């Protein structure tokens, strides 16, 4: 099947290095301390952050002088093509762990000892790249909650089909059998916090795909910064009024 036509257009009309349209908003769940909606094309994710608050399950606390970060990833029953049977399958558990460790690396947990930070992610629509959308949404929600972080954690995916590296795969491209590289970086520090890849790829090609994904991450970081600055302006305006 042809995923990139001879003119260089993909199935949805994008070029190889074009991301899908991003819509991001903070403060959507009034009951949460911080929340955000992040959409990448048709993939829609809501993140809600509760914390820092009292630790609810003392047995989970491993380090006394650091905050405990918990993360739960769940997909709505109607989010994918077929209605999902089980709410918590192995993939959700794996993603919860991956996202928790990514966010834990960027939260300054030593500033909030004896407390718990809960990050909840709900996927409302899944069209590829849910992992990345979740990390981006979680970053926005943590910033909205005022939790100190060393940098924004941003994430993007890239793949390799029809001998072309492609940025930001959607579901059809992802299930094509080619490789899928998900990268999570801290843009200011220029450090990689998450790197996942499946399927086989020669080393040089991997470096091209990885570079493409990193570029995508930087673009998302810009966008997230704009959203947060706009949000701060709104808060300032409301406070002055």
């Amino acid at each position, binding site marked *: 099947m042809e995923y990139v036509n001879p003119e260089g257009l993909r199935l949805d009309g994008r070029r190889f290095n074009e991301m899908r349209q991003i819509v991001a908003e903070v403060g959507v769940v009034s009951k949460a301390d911080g929340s955000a909606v992040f959409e990448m094309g048709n993939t829609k994710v809501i993140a809600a952050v509760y914390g820092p608050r009292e630790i609810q399950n003392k047995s989970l606390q491993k380090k006394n002088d650091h905050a405990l970060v918990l993360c739960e990833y769940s997909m709505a029953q109607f989010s994918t093509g077929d*209605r999902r049977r089980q709410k918590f399958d192995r993939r959700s558990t794996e993603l919860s762990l991956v996202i928790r460790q990514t966010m834990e690396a960027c939260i300054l947990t030593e500033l909030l000892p004896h407390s718990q930070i809960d990050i*909840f*992610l709900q996927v409302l629509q899944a069209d590829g790249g849910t992992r990345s959308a979740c990390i981006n949404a979680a970053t926005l929600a943590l910033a909205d909650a005022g939790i100190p972080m060393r940098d924004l954690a941003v994430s993007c995916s890239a793949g390799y089909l029809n001998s072309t590296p492609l940025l930001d795969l959607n579901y059809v491209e992802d299930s094509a059998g080619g490789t899928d590289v998900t990268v999570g970086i801290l843009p200011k520090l220029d450090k990689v916090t998450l790197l996942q890849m499946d399927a086989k790829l020669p080393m040089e090609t991997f470096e091209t795909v990885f570079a493409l994904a990193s570029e995508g991450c930087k673009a998302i970081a810009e966008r997230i910064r704009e959203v947060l600055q706009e949000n701060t302006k709104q808060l300032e305006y409301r406070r002055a009024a």
Partner: protein
Amino acid sequence: MGLPDSSQDLSTEMEVDAFRRIFPLRFFERHLSESLRPDARPLGKARDTIVNPGLVSTADGSALAKIGSTTMLAAIRMEVMTPSTDSPDEGCIALEFHMPPICSPTVRPGRPADAAPVISKRLTDTILSSGMIDLKELCLVSGKAAWMGYLDIYCLNADGALFDAALLSAVAAFSNLEIPVVALNDNGRIVAISGGKDEDNASIIEKKAVNKEKRKLTLKNIPFSLTCILHKNYILADPTTEEESIMDTLVTVVLDASDQLVSLYKSGGTVLAYSSAVKSCVELARKRAKELKQILGEMDID
């Protein structure tokens, strides 16, 4: 009353927010005596309600309903199944209400919220007993194939009156529902037709499409609900989470478009209601049903 009069002395010195947290009941009663609530609503008024249909593109029908801050997202997916032998001409609806941890600080991950299965059951009972949906419309081939509608309602923000918002989103999702076109293939099985762009598919649609005309459900007797709190002599319509946590006697009245009573729900609570209180709740519900009917009407036109 329960509380000593010490609050009387402190109330003049304390900040409003602190007073609200430490003496919530007295804070509310101060407002109730002026026939108002802290958010400046009169006692019988519900919060601003918005309904947005068709948000989830992966579902066959969906709607988002917001009452104040309480947000519910409902989506329906249709699947074909074999009807049971005692009702071969009827389809089926399976409803599930989810409260994911994002909606409220009191919901812990791994432990489903206490309210979720209760609301699930009440919603199923209300929708089926109101007769809004004729299950016979969900039949495809008598005795062999019928539609099973999976309705999932997700609470995205829990700020009181969960049942009302969930019912509204369910009704809106049903009215937004478009049943997928299917055809009977040679093996006698029902297959979905995707958009019909291929030439093969087009010929199938012309000849064998089983339900080409009937794509929308006819909804009669649409139920509308209103939850009220009873506190001493006051009746507060459409409570927020804060109000629900302080005053525990809730009464839910469900009426349909022709002002008939569909369901009444009062599950205990410290306040015992006289029939006059119940009648007042029904009156408030009647007014609310008119408002909701108008909101749903505006939604359909879009």
